[in-house]
């Protein structure tokens, strides 16, 4: 499911995606489809075999009208008719953190070489795709971006990882114990340490 397009980037691995709004598409994404922790993929360019894989780590609401106290020239109803572009500028932007890439079915948990361009469509990943992304060549559980994420000075990272691990746990029954060790570790870091 396509949820939007890239409109801006903050760094090589951090992108802003504007979620499709009214007038752009017929079936607009529901909020739960671009929720915090949603896995998404994007192609650096049209025919690249590589797909970047990222996760929604933040949501921003845009409303340029808010705070402009001057008198309105025309009512919303008039605007719909006279200048529909302007109306669309209120909307939702999600912050996407790139975790790795997939090429030919093999997942790579590392900073990808290529970056995506403005206008690149962003697509959600289904459950199967998420599981596949978290498997190494031998089919064992792998979460190679865990250390890089934890190293970011970002308070939401721990809960992001925790939610990812919780989501993945049922898919890897053989590695439940390892996942639990990581979860405990995170819970300690995210819940106990900051409170102490």
């Amino acid at each position, binding site marked *: 499911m396509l949820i939007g397009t890239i409109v801006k980037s903050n760094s090589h691995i951090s992108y802003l995606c504007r979620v499709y709004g009214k007038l752009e598409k017929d079936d607009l994404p529901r909020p739960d489809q671009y929720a915090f922790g949603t896995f998404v993929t994007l192609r650096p360019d049209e025919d690249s075999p590589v797909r970047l894989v990222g996760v929604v780590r933040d949501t921003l609401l845009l409303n340029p009208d808010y705070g402009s106290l001057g008198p309105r020239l025309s009512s919303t109803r008039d605007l719909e008719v006279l200048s529909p572009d302007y109306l669309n500028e209120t909307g939702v932007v999600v912050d996407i953190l790139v975790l790795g890439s997939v090429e030919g079915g093999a997942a790579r948990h590392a900073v990808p070489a290529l970056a995506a361009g403005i206008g690149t469509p962003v697509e959600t990943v289904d459950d199967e795709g998420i599981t596949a992304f978290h498997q*190494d060549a031998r089919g064992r559980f792998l979460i190679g971006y865990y*250390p890089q994420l934890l190293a970011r000075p970002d308070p939401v990272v721990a809960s992001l990882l925790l939610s990812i691990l919780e989501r993945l746990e049922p898919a890897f029954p053989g590695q439940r114990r*390892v996942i639990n*060790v990581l979860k405990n570790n995170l819970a300690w870091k995210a819940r106990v340490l900051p409170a102490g």
Partner: protein
Amino acid sequence: MEYTKVGTAKGPGDHAHEFLLITPDDDGNCKIGEFVFYTLDAGDSRRNVLGRITRRSPVRLFPDSFMASPEVTPAEVAAAIGYVDDEDELFEVAVTVMGHYDPRLSAFVNPRVLPRSGSPVYLAPSEMLSEVLSKRTVAQRGSAYVGWLLSRGQEDVPVALDVNEFTSTHLSIIAGTGSGKSYLAGVTVEELMKPYNKGCVLIADPHGEYDTLVEMPNKPEFVENGYRPRVKIFRPDQVKVKMSNLGLADLRHLLTTLGERMDWILTEAFNRVQNKMGSAYDGSWTLADLIREVEEVGQEQIDKGADYSSSVYGLVWRLKQRFEHSKSFDDNEHLDLNALFQPGQCTVLQLNEIDQRDQEVIVATLLRRLLYARMGTQKGEIPETDERYIPYPVFVLLEEAHHFAPASGDAVSTPILKQVLSEGRKFGVGVGLISQRPGKLDGDVLSQCMTHFIMRIVNPIDQNSIASAVESVGRDLLDELPALSKGQVVIAGASLNTPVIAQTRTRLTKHGGLSIDAAEEWGRYFADRERRERDSAVVDIRTRRNQLYRDE
């Protein structure tokens, strides 16, 4: 030759002759006590500088949180977050430099240059170590092959000690009980009795565990070109000391706490009996002679008007009590020195069943006579026909040495033992001291021994007394002592080029001091008793039943 690289030199260590190396140590080569080397350019040749590993610490450890579940290895957790390298461990190893071996000096020369940072460090090959660690080679004249380097395979690097060293500058065997001291002493004696040594050895054996050495003459390893070692065992009732060989201190020690007057009378009488009957070590007085002198001294005092009669009476009574029926002290019989000491002969003095004080006096008189005999023989004062004529060096092995030179200092044997340790070298009298309590052994005595066999010791007091008395053993080796198992031994000192941790070789003769299998013996006796009780129980029941019937 291709050498095995074990790691990469990192830089200098904590002190001047130490460097650090970094290694993943996949093959487990970098054990403490293991030997490694680096190369140095020396003009047109290269030198291999040997060093010993003294410490090792991991520099890369999994975080504690990876070990949160005992069911999951930290490596699995690391693999899950993308770390799949097999070499997850990395060690920093400290190496103390010994130097390069100079065959002309037959010693290690320290080059005072540490390896360059980043240069390779190699495992010392067994052939190299066999050449440089020991002063001798196996089965060479004057060698004692007691075991092999523990860190290598069986017999890969034999440890062959220099017999001349430890038989002249003395030996100590120290370890906690049951660690294999007597076993190792047995190995050492076997080596001394091999055809290439033909040693002259006496063992003071308070536990009667060395009589199995009698197997030696019947083992092919000991026989060569008409040589066959002799083993003489003296049973406890055959160990005799002549009264006139006793010194005043011995008498005092044997009589224990004498009153002031008695002591004075004894001293006076002893001096007279000595003067009348010859020189200090050639007297031949008897108990009766001594008692006569005691009575005479007493009578003189009584004549002067002093009342000494009760003291005289008491002293005579105690002398008779102590010596008249003594198994160990005799008016005429004693052990001829030339019967005890012969090259190619191993003499075992069994001292079990003999009272502790008597043992001390026996050993003290024996050592005294031996030392004076060797002195006299060397100075040409003793004729060849005399039993004291001993024209060759001898080696005496003392079990339970802490009884003969206790730290508390109240043994008659301590002074003569110290004299032997300090002067014995000049006169060819060497001793080997065996003790399970170095802490209870006189400190001087231990530090006078120049070769040390140290086995498993757990007690920290004993470890400290070793650390202070034994300079040749570094702290790193002492730290290994509690971890040694039976038969593993730290050998240090003058008889080899550098301290090593060795595995004692297997004895050729049976070991006499076998540990008792308590459970097995209890089981056997219990079964016996059970049977007896069952038998008697049957009788009991029958008699009781009869009584019941009778009551009815």
